[in-house]
C-alpha cells in the first residue's frame, strides 16, 4: 500500500529495556511527525522532521526519548530504559511538505507499546 506504515504493530517489553519503533512515511513526503496517545488522552506531539532541517524535538517528554530519520525517509523512535508510563500508542504521520494548513498529515496505524 501507499500509506504510512509502522512496525511493530504491538510491542510488549519489560521496564528498563530499550525499544525501537519504526515508521515508513509515504514516498515523497518530506515531513514526518511522531505522536503518542496514552490511555484516555488525545494525541501528544513528540517530534517533527522536515527535509534536512534540524528536527523540532520540543514534544519529547524526557531525554530517554530520541528519534532519527535516515536519508529523509524512514524514521526510528527510540525509548531507552522504558517506564510503565511510556505505555501508549505511538503514531507516525507524514505530509507532503512542512507544517501548514495546506499539508494534510497522513497517519500510520500506530505501534501499541506496553511496558510491564
Amino acid at each position, binding site marked *: 500500500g501507499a500509506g504510512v506504515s509502522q512496525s511493530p504493530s504491538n510491542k510488549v517489553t519489560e521496564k528498563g529495556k530499550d525499544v525501537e519503533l519504526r515508521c515508513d512515511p509515504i514516498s515523497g513526503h518530506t515531513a514526518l511527525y511522531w505522536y503518542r496517545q496514552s490511555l484516555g488522552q*488525545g494525541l501528544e*506531539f513528540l517530534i517533527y522532521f522536515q527535509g534536512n532541517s534540524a528536527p523540532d524535538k520540543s*514534544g519529547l517528554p524526557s531525554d530517554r526519548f530520541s528519534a532519527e530519520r535516515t536519508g529523509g525517509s524512514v524514521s526510528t523512535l527510540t525509548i531507552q530504559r522504558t517506564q510503565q508510563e511510556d505505555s501508549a500508542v505511538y503514531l507516525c504521520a507524514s505530509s507532503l511538505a512542512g507544517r501548514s494548513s495546506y499539508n494534510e498529515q497522513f497517519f500510520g496505524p500506530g505501534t501499541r507499546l506496553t511496558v510491564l
Partner: protein
Amino acid sequence: DQQVKQNSPSLSVQEGRISILNCDYTNSMFDYFLWYKKYPAEGPTFLISISSIKDKNEDGRFTVFLNKSAKHLSLHIVPSQPGDSAVYFCAASAFGRGSQGNLIFGKGTKLSVKP
C-alpha cells in the same frame, strides 16, 4: 492544562439523525481547526477543517461550525450512518501566527451510530 477540550467522551445517535460533536479551545492564537476520524487499530484520518476567517465549512454530510468569540467549534454529521461510528478528534493549530504549527489534539469523542 488542556488547550483543546472535548468534554463528551462518547455520543450515541440513531441512524439518520444528526450527530453533533463539540470542541472547546482556550488558546486565542489558534487559527486553524481540524477534525480527524479514527477507527480501531487504524491511524486517524483527516475529515474536515476550518480556518479562523470562516465560521462554517461544509463537505457533504459533514459541516464544521466555528464560534471564535466562544472559542467553540462543532462537527455536524447529517444524516448519521453506522459507518460513521468511530472516535472523532478535534485538533487546533496556529499555522498562520508564526508558531511552530504543531497540532494540539483533544481527547476524542467516541460516536456510536445505531441502526
